């Protein structure tokens, strides 16, 4: 009992230190990052597919330099949609290497094809030490994948054994993709639809045939307003963007000031601005309608009762697939009392483009 008390007595000034000692240990546990083990990789890897046309019978030229200069008896070429060696391999759709032929080799040579499946090929040779000489292997009679959307890869690995069994020595991945050089009429590529008028139907099948807005007579006591509509949609995976282009309202050299940032409408102050939302002051406009809510109004043009105009600005868009959505554009014009007489007009071009 006395010893315990003496222990407490001696330790009591050190509780702070104990806490300080424990804290870093706790932090180390918390901040410990899982270790990633390192594997040597082939150097200077490349792949040339000729022709890179979907479904075509092509020649594949694989080039690499060996990293680990040791005895090598075999190499495995595994064709997958995923380049990561330890991940499950999904064969590229339509690919067939089961009839491939090794027609040429340079650098480290002596290989022959030991076995082939539709997406895997094992090369074998008399085991021998390899050098870091750049090496090239040409395979003919490989049928390209038919799916043009995804890239595909060859996972390369070499082994001391003659049948690609046992511990691998080096590994690496080369990648490629196939694409159509010509648009085949029987295929329907992704489409982008777009329409603009004073009023449009949501599906762009009809509009009111009016492609202008008459704002009326300008004076310093009233705000002139107008609206127009546009619909857009795409099934392209990159989405679309709509920009507004054109000058502010002008009569010769006299220009009504375009609002540079979202600003309230004030009669008697020279202002020209637009937005794409519902407003109450003045009362006009509407929010976008349509089921694909990933198509949105640009932030600056989405403030109720705040208007601005910037030539070339993005006013709406979708970052990916978005079917038809209709946007209503609200226009306001205010004139200062000293505005010079004239016919003030502008032509606004709404440009809808795909994204890359």
């Amino acid at each position: 009992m006395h010893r315990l008390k003496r222990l407490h007595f001696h330790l009591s000034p050190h509780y702070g230190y104990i806490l300080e000692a424990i804290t870093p240990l706790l932090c180390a546990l918390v901040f410990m990052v899982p270790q990633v083990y390192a594997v040597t990789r082939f150097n200077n890897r490349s792949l040339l597919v000729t022709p890179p046309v979907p479904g075509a019978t092509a020649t594949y030229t694989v080039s690499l330099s060996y990293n680990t200069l040791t005895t090598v008896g075999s190499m495995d070429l595994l064709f997958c949609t995923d380049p990561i060696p330890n991940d499950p391999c999904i064969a590229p759709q339509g690919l067939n290497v089961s009839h491939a032929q090794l027609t040429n080799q340079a650098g480290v040579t002596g290989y022959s094809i030991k076995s082939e499946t539709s997406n895997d090929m094992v090369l074998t040779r008399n085991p021998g030490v390899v050098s870091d000489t750049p090496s090239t292997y040409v395979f003919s009679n490989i049928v390209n994948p038919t799916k043009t959307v995804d890239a595909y890869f060859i996972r390369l690995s070499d082994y001391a054994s003659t049948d690609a069994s046992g511990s691998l020595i080096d590994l690496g991945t080369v990648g490629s993709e196939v694409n159509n050089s010509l648009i085949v009429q029987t295929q329907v590529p992704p489409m982008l639809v777009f329409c603009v008028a004073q009023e449009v139907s949501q599906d762009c099948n009809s509009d009111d045939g009016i492609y202008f807005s008459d704002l009326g007579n300008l004076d310093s006591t009233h705000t002139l307003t107008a609206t127009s509509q546009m619909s857009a949609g795409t099934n392209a995976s990159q989405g679309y963007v709509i920009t507004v282009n054109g000058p502010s309202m002008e009569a010769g050299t006299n220009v009504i000031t375009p609002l540079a940032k979202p600003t309230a409408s004030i009669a008697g102050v020279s202002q020209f601005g637009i937005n794409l939302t519902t407003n109450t002051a003045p009362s006009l406009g509407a929010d976008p309608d349509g089921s694909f809510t990933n198509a949105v109004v640009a932030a600056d043009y989405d403030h109720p009762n705040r208007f601005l105009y910037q030539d070339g600005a993005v006013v709406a868009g979708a970052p990916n697939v978005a079917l038809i959505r209709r946007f209503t554009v609200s226009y306001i014009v205010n004139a200062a009392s000293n505005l010079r007489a004239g016919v003030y007009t502008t032509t606004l071009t709404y440009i809808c483009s795909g994204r890359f």
Partner: protein
Amino acid sequence: MKRLASFLSVALVAVFAMVSVVPASAAPSSTRSSSGLSIIPRINLQINPGQTVTSKLVIGNLSNTTDLNLTLRPIDFTFSNDSGVPKLFLAQNAPQTTWSIKPFINIPGGIVVPKGQTKTVPFTLSVPKGQGAGSYYSAIEYESGNSNGGSVSLSATGVSLVFVEVPGIVHEDVSLQKMGAYQTANQGVTGGYAFINTIMPRNVAFSLKNNGNVAESPSGTLTIHDMWGNKVANITNVNPSQDLALIGQTRLFLNCIKSQPTSVTLGGSTTHSQTCTNPHLWPGMYTMTLDSFYGQNGNQTKELTATATFWYMPWWAIVVLLLIVLLIVGAILRIRYKIRKHRSTPHVQRARTFRLGRK
């Protein structure tokens, strides 16, 4: 004579008055064209030096009542920011970009698509024999030309982005700029990286800078582990839409931590895509590992690997953590207090006196 002069003066005044009192609007032109069109938003071609390729534009007139009159012209573009929004050079006298396909392309100046119909318009691209390998891109503008009359005249224009790859040995140089959890409310239209996330992140992202002379479309995988080493996400394709990093661009590649597949059909064409779902992350630290590849056909396949961490600490978890720390601190203080109190009690003092006495 005086009457004639007076009459002429009045007439001149009347004419002057008519000229000066100008209406705020002008009578609209009778020219009308449909404004509803469908186009192919992106065209990718591979053309060898010395080769001429004929490709096709597919243009649809969505109106069932009016023909679609279009003016076609090639325009150059570049990137606007780190997204895939093109910056179009619309001016007629805009300088040609070094990656422009204007010297190669031959398209008709205008077409008419009858109401409700789709027209296929062929165009050719001829790459000169000595043309260097790399990426060349411009856009094709389709202007409907309904811009006549009114205070505000409206015009609808569609744009197709055309990318041409000239194969050969190219200069490829892509570097990773940033990686981590990405907070966005609109799928990347706006947002930013976040190291400590009080709102559960639904997205992770990485930014690549393209210093080469070819537009790059990286591929690869991204894995996310929690701080106990458990894999919580395995993104097998970090660029499913084959987004491009244009020449000179720092491009953001955004991915869902968890997603579900969707498919959308438009005009007979079906596209498969992914939508983000709730990843159900627990509070704590997460490590993401990127293994990305890029490389043009026949060029070296280059690999980018990187690791980054981020925290997910919702406010309720921060409160719980603070409470736990307070409890520990409180417990320690209470133990110290009890020990001090125990030492100051009489039976402890008698024991000390006894020990001193023995000495």
